[in-house]
């Protein structure tokens, strides 16, 4: 039945030829911007774009948005040869056709030297000859097509990450080259030893191996040696310490054997070990870097940009960090206010839910104090900035967060915890073996050293070092494709240990937008929606969405800050409609028309569609649930009751949320905090692990360990069950690696391990661990 209704609706509702969004019945386009974009594309003969593209409904539609342009010139860089460069993040890039369209349009610009889209990072790099002011023109060309471009400056962190990835890739290439060649030569010596190869030939081959292996190890081992040195200087140990010790000792011993004409060298083991380890590390960095970059990009595109009103009346977009006290900023309809300040002109109401958790809009007028992060609902406001940097509400939250994050950084990953106990044991074992062979066995020191080193090679935690990162890579990749961006390297392990989930209410359990309450009269709703179609006000939008298909009323006129009038019919506040009514519960719109009694449309918060199912699933996973909100007790208790959450607290300030979480954690609970507001920021930092929806305040997304996209709440449950499965597989891997060592170490101690056996054993154990990890990929997503 529902399917039919949907079909009927889509038939009645035309979609815009350009952006695919609903268009008014009988129209080909939803807005003049789309019509212009279509003209441009057809005019350039690029109509193929419409045939080839695939629109993803989850992404932003390619709809041109009028408004202030970003301050581009500040971001234009001058290159050595006099050309200018600008890198931009693209919002709305949907598929390969978009890349083709953008590049084809840019190819028609004569001065442009380079205009290429990077689809992986969703960036556009422009290089042109001429003035910096050309940037606005070039960007305007693309923005007219419906993409949004934001100047992108690679953060120091991202640049460092990229450098690390490149260094690892180069090291991997060198190690791979060396491993292949050294292994080939080693095979020759092994076979040669059985067929009576002369000692001179064998020594030659050993020298050749050394020639390749030693520089390769010196180069490719640096990531491990550096990290091990750093840990040792801090008087700690990590996984890289046993790796470095093992590789260096084995190399040294092999060199010595080569120089003295010994029969056995282990160059191939050392190089292969490095190759496997580098592969694991590279995968790890890449998977995490990708998720991290995606989260970063989300923040760039949502833009903390603020429209500043210049002295000469011009409008410029500037990042929040470039706002100074005394600046006058504009907050448009439906925009978030960019800084703390005082209203200078305009009357409106604000949605403060992201800051305080309160769901009821607050009325503001000239002289009212407003906070950054609140949403302007009714009419444009001009605001004089009173606080920037320290002293803002934001800054207080940031301070609380910094204090909390220092505590969380003490978490030690499982691999390092194992390595901490494992490394001394292994080194003692090798030393013990050596001493035993010398003292008790009476063997020559050279032979005893050889046996001791064989123990080191066998125990060198190749499988151990692969066991954890591989699982991390696969789990992170799975979460990534599910729209869950993991930001912290230890988040997965902390997530697996969670036993309590604490939710924020507004915007987390409920949808960020309001919904129409009750079931209003259908005719009244249809007529009201026809008026509402003329407005961009959030409540009017909700009304339109509730009554499709909407045919806009001819002659409807919006009075900013009051309502919409069309002939004798009026839609807006009670005062605007001339209705005498007390303050109702929550936000409302009144609708009056001739010959009918006034109709009231109330709006309430609505639970996310899958909130109930997700809560049930979390319970099934054995988790305790709680609700901490800054909103009024009535609305919190309503939501708590609807979901059956028994533990709830209302009216909490950021500080109180932190206190509540700390109380839980001192009682031994491991808490996952899920929240989206500015007021949740400190609590997110205090919790053992934290999550934010991608609609959250910038601050919350920065703090949260993982960010999930889309309208659903289900990712929270998916993340927990994936983390738990990942933990199980990690433990199996560790058990496999340790079990293999238990089997091989006695052989090594007895002196039975020859170079070829060591190389084979190492490869086999790594392969087993890899195969076991891929089981995680095969497992079904739903738990």
């Amino acid at each position, binding site marked *: 039945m529902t399917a039919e209704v949907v079909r009927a609706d889509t038939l009645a509702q035309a979609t815009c030829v350009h952006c695919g969004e609903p268009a008014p019945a009988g129209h080909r386009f939803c807005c003049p911007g789309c019509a212009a974009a279509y003209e441009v594309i057809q005019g350039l003969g690029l109509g193929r774009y419409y045939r080839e593209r695939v629109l993803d409904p989850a992404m932003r539609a390619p709809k041109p948005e009028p408004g202030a342009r970003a301050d581009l010139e500040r971001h234009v860089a001058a290159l050595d040869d006099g050309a200018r460069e600008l890198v931009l993040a693209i919002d709305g890039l949907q*598929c*390969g056709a978009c*890349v083709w369209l953008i590049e084809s349009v840019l190819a028609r610009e004569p001065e442009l030297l380079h205009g290429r889209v990077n689809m992986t990072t969703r960036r556009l790099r422009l290089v042109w000859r001429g003035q910096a002011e050309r940037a606005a023109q070039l960007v305007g060309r693309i923005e007219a097509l419906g993409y949004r471009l934001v100047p992108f400056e690679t953060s120091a962190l991202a640049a460092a990450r990229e450098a690390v990835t490149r260094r690892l*890739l180069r090291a991997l290439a060198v190690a791979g080259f060396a491993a292949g*060649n050294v292994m080939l030569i080693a095979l020759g010596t092994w076979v040669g030893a059985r067929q009576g190869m002369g000692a001179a030939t064998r020594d030659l081959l050993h020298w050749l191996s050394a020639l*390749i292996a030693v520089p390769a190890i010196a180069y490719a081992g640096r990531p491990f040696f550096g990290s091990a040195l750093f840990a040792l200087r801090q008087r700690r140990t990590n996984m890289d310490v046993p790796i470095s010790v093992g590789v260096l000792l084995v190399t040294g011993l092999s060199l010595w054997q080569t120089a003295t004409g010994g029969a056995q060298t282990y160059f191939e083991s050392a190089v292969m070990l490095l190759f496997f380890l580098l592969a694991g590390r590279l995968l790890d960095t890449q998977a995490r870097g990708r998720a991290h970059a995606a989260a970063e990009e989300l923040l760039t595109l949502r833009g903390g940009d603020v429209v500043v009103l210049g002295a000469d009346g011009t409008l410029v977009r500037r990042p929040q960090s470039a706002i100074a006290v005394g600046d006058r900023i504009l907050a448009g309809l439906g925009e978030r206010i960019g800084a703390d300040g005082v209203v200078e002109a305009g009357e409106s109401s604000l949605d403060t839910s992201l800051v305080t958790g309160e769901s009821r809009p607050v009325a503001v007028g000239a002289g009212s104090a407003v906070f950054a992060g609140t949403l302007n609902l009714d009419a444009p406001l001009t605001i004089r900035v009173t606080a920037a940097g320290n002293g803002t509400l934001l800054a207080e939250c940031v301070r609380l967060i910094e204090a909390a994050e220092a505590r969380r950084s003490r978490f030690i990953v499982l691999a390092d915890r194992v390595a901490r106990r494992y490394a001394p044991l292994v080194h003692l074992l090798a030393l013990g073996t050596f001493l035993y062979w010398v003292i008790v066995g009476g063997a020559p020191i050279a032979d005893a050293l050889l046996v001791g080193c064989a123990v080191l090679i066998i125990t060198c935690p190749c499988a151990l070092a692969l066991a954890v990162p591989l699982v991390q890579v696969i789990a992170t990749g799975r979460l990534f494709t599910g729209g869950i961006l993991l930001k912290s390297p230890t988040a997965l392990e902390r997530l697996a240990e969670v036993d309590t989930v604490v939710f924020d209410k507004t915007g987390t359990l409920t949808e960020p937008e309001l919904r129409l309450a009750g079931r209003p009269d259908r005719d009244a709703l249809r007529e009201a929606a026809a008026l509402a179609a003329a407005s961009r006000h959030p409540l009017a939008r909700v009304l339109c969405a509730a009554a499709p298909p909407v045919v806009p009323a001819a002659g409807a006129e919006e009075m900013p800050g009051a309502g919409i009038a069309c002939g004798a019919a009026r839609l807006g506040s009670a005062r605007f409609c001339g209705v005498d009514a007390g303050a109702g519960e929550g936000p409302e719109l009144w609708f009056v028309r001739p010959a009918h009694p006034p109709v009231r449309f109330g709006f309430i918060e609505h639970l996310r569609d899958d909130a109930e199912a997700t809560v049930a699933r979390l319970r099934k996973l054995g988790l305790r649930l709680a609700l901490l909100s800054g909103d009024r007790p009535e609305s919190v208790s309503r939501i708590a009751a609807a979901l059956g959450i028994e533990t709830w607290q209302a009216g909490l300030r950021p500080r109180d949320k932190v206190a509540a979480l700390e109380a839980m954690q001192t009682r031994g609970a491991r808490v996952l905090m899920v929240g989206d507001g500015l007021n949740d920021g400190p609590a997110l930092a205090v919790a053992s692990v934290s999550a934010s929806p991608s609609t959250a305040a910038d601050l919350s997304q920065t703090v949260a360990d993982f960010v999930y996209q889309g309208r659903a709440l289900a990712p929270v449950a998916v993340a927990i069950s994936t983390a738990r499965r990942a933990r199980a597989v990690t433990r199996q891997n560790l058990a496999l690696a340790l079990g293999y060592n238990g089997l091989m170490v006695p052989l090594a101690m007895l002196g039975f391990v020859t170079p070829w056996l060591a190389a084979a054993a190492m490869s086999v154990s790594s392969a087993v661990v890899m195969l076991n990890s891929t089981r995680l990929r095969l497992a079904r997503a739903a738990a």
Partner: protein
Amino acid sequence: MIILFGLLALSLCLGGIGLAAFLWSLRDGQYSDLDGAAHRVLFDD
């Protein structure tokens, strides 16, 4: 015996060429947009 020297040198040279090619392609940025490369193939003109 002489053939051994020749073959060893040859194999090292071949491996070295491969390594150099990879390092060059890495520096050239050929691995920076793997997604884009997959899609660009469909729109060659």
